[in-house]
């Protein structure tokens, strides 16, 4: 090999060990999972003993009503919680982006739910929703109102898991939104104020558009997370009543442990993975697009400034 060839190969040589570790640690398990989707595999068998069934697991899932129901529940859940969390989280950030006494204390309090282990969150809310001793129903009864069947009615149970998730994860959006707000160029805001923009105009026309790249990434991160949520729902409702809160990750876990169908569970995981992959790609392309647009704007601004001078 020539000197130049060797020099060109050097970086790849240095990268090789890391690449090898990535391949083994990251790709191998994924490949294993994808391979398992083609098997009729129960957990009492070793993977080698499982029968190869081609696409049967996928075909089964596509006509399985329970899977479809749980898919719809998952999409509905993710859309509603992320929507609600975005509105509340960003709203709170806009409200609290100012100098108030004891602000750092409040900020810490606001992000506390996020730090609690999900199983504990589940147990806590399960107690609060308890039909007779839970604080919610006791309060309702004390006010002379009808108690609410928080977890024992399909629609209420769905609302209850949404409330718990919004409670836990709004702070995530809140801190990211607050960080984004605080890094906005003050000059733009000052200019807007001097031009007489009202508070609302500042929010709609200046703050939100400038925060948009951060918000979109935050939203996609939350969406990915919401598609995979398991513990809180497991503890709160275990998917019930009926299948009203049986989210995909819960169905995957039940398929593997209760139904003992590892192949079908793998196929479901794979579909979930593909969906999340699509979301991640969307996030990636949005970031690229936003960057390109920002660069173009900067160029236009620079050109305008140059022309003005």
């Amino acid at each position, binding site marked *: 090999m020539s000197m130049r060839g060797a020099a060109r190969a050097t970086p790849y040589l240095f990268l090789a060990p890391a690449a090898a570790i990535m391949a083994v640690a990251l790709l191998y398990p994924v490949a294993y999972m994808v391979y398992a989707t083609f098997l009729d595999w129960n*957990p009492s068998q070793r993977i080698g003993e499982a029968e190869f069934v081609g696409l049967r697991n996928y075909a089964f899932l596509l006509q399985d009503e329970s899977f479809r129901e749980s898919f719809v529940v998952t999409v509905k859940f993710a859309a509603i919680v992320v929507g609600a969390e975005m509105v509340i989280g960003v709203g709170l950030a806009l409200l609290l982006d100012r100098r108030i006494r004891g602000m750092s204390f409040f900020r810490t309090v606001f992000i506390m739910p996020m730090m609690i282990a999900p199983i504990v969150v589940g147990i806590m809310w399960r107690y609060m929703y308890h039909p007779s001793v839970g604080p919610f129903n006791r309060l309702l009864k004390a006010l002379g109102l009808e108690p609410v069947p928080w977890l024992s009615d399909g629609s209420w149970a769905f609302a209850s898991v949404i409330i718990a998730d919004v409670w836990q994860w709004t702070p995530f959006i809140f801190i990211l939104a607050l960080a984004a707000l605080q890094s906005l160029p003050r000059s733009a805001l000052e200019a807007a104020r001097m031009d007489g923009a009202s508070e609302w105009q500042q929010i709609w026309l200046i703050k939100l558009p400038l925060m948009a790249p951060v918000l979109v990434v935050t939203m996609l991160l939350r969406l990915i997370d919401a598609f995979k949520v398991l513990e809180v729902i497991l503890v709160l409702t275990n998917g019930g009543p009926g299948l009203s809160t049986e989210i995909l990750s819960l169905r995957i876990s039940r398929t593997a442990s209760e139904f003992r169908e590892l192949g079908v569970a793998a196929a479901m995981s794979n579909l979930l993975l593909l969906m999340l992959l699509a979301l991640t790609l969307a996030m990636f392309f949005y970031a690229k697009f936003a960057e390109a647009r920002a660069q173009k704007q900067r160029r236009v601004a620079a050109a305008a400034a140059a022309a003005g001078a």
Partner: protein
Amino acid sequence: MKQSIKQAAAAAAAFALAGGPAFANPYAPYAGDTLVVNFPFSPHYDAVMKIIPQFTEETGIEVEVDQLQYLKMRERQTLELTKDRGDYDLIGYVVFSKADYVYADQLENLARYFMNPKLADPSYDPDDLIDAYVYNIGFAGGNKGYLEGKTGSLFGIPFGSETSILGYRTDIFDKHGLKVPETYDELLDVACRIPQLEPGMGGLSSRAASGHHASHAFLLHLAPLGGRIFDDNWQPIVNNAAGVKAAEALKTIVDCGPEGSETFGFAEAGAAFLQGQTAMFLDSTQFAGQVNDPSKSKVAGKVGWALHPRGVRRGSQTGGFGIGIPKNAQNKEAAFLLLQWLTSPRVDKMIALAGGNPSRFSTHADAEVNAKFPHMATFGEALRHADPDWRPIIPVWGKINADLGTSLSKVLTEGLDVQEALDGVAARTSDVMREAGYYTWD
């Protein structure tokens, strides 16, 4: 070398114990060995833990116990049993694992141990073991593959098994002059009268949460009301008149039960009864140990026990745990000695006195045990009516069980029509059974 020293020491110990070479100690060859066993957390096994040190004392065989929550235990075992060399010498298993483990050839057939004169204790008295438990939990390969029958054999011994029993509040029943229900009609009538007589109190505490719990509660009523999941040709008949009646019974019980009982699991149903929120409890005998424990119960001393009411027949549940020896165990013979010791008449009684669930008729009839636990005689009577076929123990049951449980939950919470729900379960069960090859011979 170390092994031979150990054996020599063991032989010396055996000699000392037996008093002479003519009465060899059957445990001697294994003295100094360590058995690793996997047991669930349950009141029965908690009692067992108090007795195990005595085994070591008597035999010189050490025992290490890995105790896990029962579903975690099942997961662990599933992985453990597929290994070439397993870590566990003896396992406690959930009754529905029997089908999976035996079908995957992962449990030792116990015949060759009971045939081995050096291992089998002549005073073991196998006929004293409760029939329904043995067939339900330990037996495989008989009728339908999971019941008693000429083609079956023994893979485990019931240990920590349970049946269903009716607990009722004697104070409430006395106060209103109520008769303890003996039939299903009486049961449903009383269950719905109690909320009127005692405002704020539910009739009967039942589990009903979506999935396994709702299914279990339904099955409790299905057998006494004359129903079954399958006919003799594996065709689902869960949607026949008896099935509908059982589901309606469940709905009545839940509607007249304590507030929020649609989401109760076993623990919550039990807690509601212990907290005095309901007047009756109909479920596993496993629960009985807590009733008179004042730290857990507000109804201590106020609970009477009666047989699971009769529908068109008697048929209380059979369930709980058994113990068996994994195929990949390292110390199978010593494990058998432990299994035999734990389930022997003498130790069965010791465990019962420590708060466990006995597996033998003699223990249920024992005067000392009855003096300490007066309910034991009723439980012994209940066992005569225990139904080993109250639910099918086949590998695909997990899936059918989940479907049944979610459909019933829809009946209880979303007002789905009973017949429609059960018809759906029957149709889907039929597909599952076809897929699993049960109709190959049709």
